[in-house]
């Protein structure tokens, strides 16, 4: 049975300095509350894996939690650049960030391979691209039957997956629906899994073929309402597009970023306090 506990306890117990961490959610259900808690608990030297680093990793990178980033598209969706990501890559602030860069198809396949207990993934990918020249973890192999050349990437086997989901039942079985992204694969590829949920219910009332993660593959479930904000939770709340736009200004300069994070994350006790502060200050500022 999954451990149903607070987010503070979940991060404290199951996510450690130096871990390889996959926090997934494809614009939907991004586990922002969990990232804040990692920042509060001052996790360091993390290898962060995520197809789209997005605001969630911009914050972790800017706050010095990350040593290495594995990713495939690093922008602020619909807005522009991730300034903290760029500052780390271009200028090494707050410290240099190693990057391992892939395409979406390759990372999606690498998660599938990880979930499948395989050491590598095979895909029709990267032909003609310069990415393999700069990433030694992209190789090419030949089909043993046809001789065709195909790309290969190592599977992802993170120490911890962190995701946000709509709901869990009292045993810790978790239901995700809508844009399900790569979360099931991220959880099953990882040694441990932390799930934040909008609510815990008596029964999931899920379709037989819905995306349900059984409790016994999950280390901890924490109830964190609105825990995906500014991302969204289908059926609960919409994407806060204004926050994504506001983030561009907040994060553009080191000082404004640091001041915002100190006030909103480090100086708040938990996600509830942060959300309260945010509502008092007009949502973003």
């Amino acid at each position, binding site marked *: 049975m999954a451990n149903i506990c607070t987010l503070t306890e979940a991060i404290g117990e199951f996510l450690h300095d130096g871990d390889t961490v996959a926090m997934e959610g494809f614009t939907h259900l991004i586990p922002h509350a969990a990232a804040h808690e990692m920042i509060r608990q001052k996790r360091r030297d993390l290898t962060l894996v995520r197809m789209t680093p997005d605001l969630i990793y911009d914050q972790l990178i800017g706050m010095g939690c990350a040593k290495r980033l594995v990713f495939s598209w690093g922008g602020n969706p619909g807005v522009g650049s991730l300034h903290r990501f760029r500052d780390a890559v271009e200028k090494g602030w707050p410290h240099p960030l190693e990057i391992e860069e892939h395409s979406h198809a390759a990372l999606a396949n690498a998660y599938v391979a990880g979930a499948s207990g395989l050491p590598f993934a095979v895909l029709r990918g990267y032909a003609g691209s310069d990415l393999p020249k700069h990433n030694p973890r992209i190789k090419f192999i030949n089909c043993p039957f046809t001789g065709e050349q195909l790309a290969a990437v190592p599977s992802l086997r993170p120490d911890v997956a962190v995701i946000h989901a709509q709901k869990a039942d009292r045993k810790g079985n978790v239901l995700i629906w809508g844009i399900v992204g790569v979360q099931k694969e991220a959880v099953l590829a990882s040694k441990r899994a932390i799930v934040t949920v909008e609510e815990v219910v008596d029964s999931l009332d899920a379709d037989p073929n819905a995306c349900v993660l059984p409790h016994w593959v999950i280390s901890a479930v924490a109830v964190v309402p609105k825990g995906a904000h500014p991302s969204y939770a289908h059926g609960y*709340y919409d994407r806060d597009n204004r926050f994504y736009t506001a983030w561009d200004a907040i994060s553009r300069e080191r000082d404004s970023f640091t001041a915002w994070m100190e006030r909103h994350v480090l100086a708040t006790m938990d996600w509830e306090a942060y959300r309260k502060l945010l509502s008092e200050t007009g949502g973003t500022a």
Partner: protein
Amino acid sequence: MADYTTSEMMTVAAARMLGNGTVCFVGIGLPSTAANLARLTHAPESVLIYESGPIGTKPNVLPLSIGDGELATTADTVVSTPEIFRYWLQGGRIDVGFLGGAQIDRYANLNTTVIGPYDKPKVRLPGAGGAPEIAAMAGEVLIIMNQNTRAFVDKLDFVTTAGHLDGGDARKRAGLPGKGPTAVITDLCIMRPDAETRELVVTDLHPGVTADQVREKTGWDVRFANDVVETMVPTPNELTVLRALLKRTAEAHGSAS
């Protein structure tokens, strides 16, 4: 005379490229606007697929992100992201990949990775996303981009996504299954690859645009077809539908909490 913007002309011209019933893998931003305009005008049976998982989506307002809830709610079905890339794109089920890009060269190769050296970039761009495999696997590729010399460059610092590589049959030799880019639609013109060399050639100029204007905004010595035609101006219906779509979108996203 021109009661439409260059941006509207670009979107309308791009939308017209999508045949009805086409299965289209849609990138976010300009491609998404154009693909949905097509769906709302001449191509109601086109099937739009986004890399986040929705198949056959019919959003009433444009998504701001690649995974907006609107895409899921209005889709025929929503699958996982690995399934999209594995069964649907790599499985060869996509007719048209519709992409944007930060930089393009004369062979329609795209750079969305870095300006400057990879290990010491002047500008770190977002990266590949789905583009390399979309451009590899889709039956053909349409590219929509605003035209200027920072974007249309003589030489890419980094080839993120293969178009026609260095031309001729280079694409085939590299083992890329799809036909590659068949048109680049900009705010000034439409370019298409030469049948032999695969170098982009201006085939259509938007109304009022001169060849010199295109030359000024292109970072290489751009070629023109012998029989350059003028793009048909946007029809009243195209403009009405596009503007209503953008208005609905602004209202929906502005009011999001």
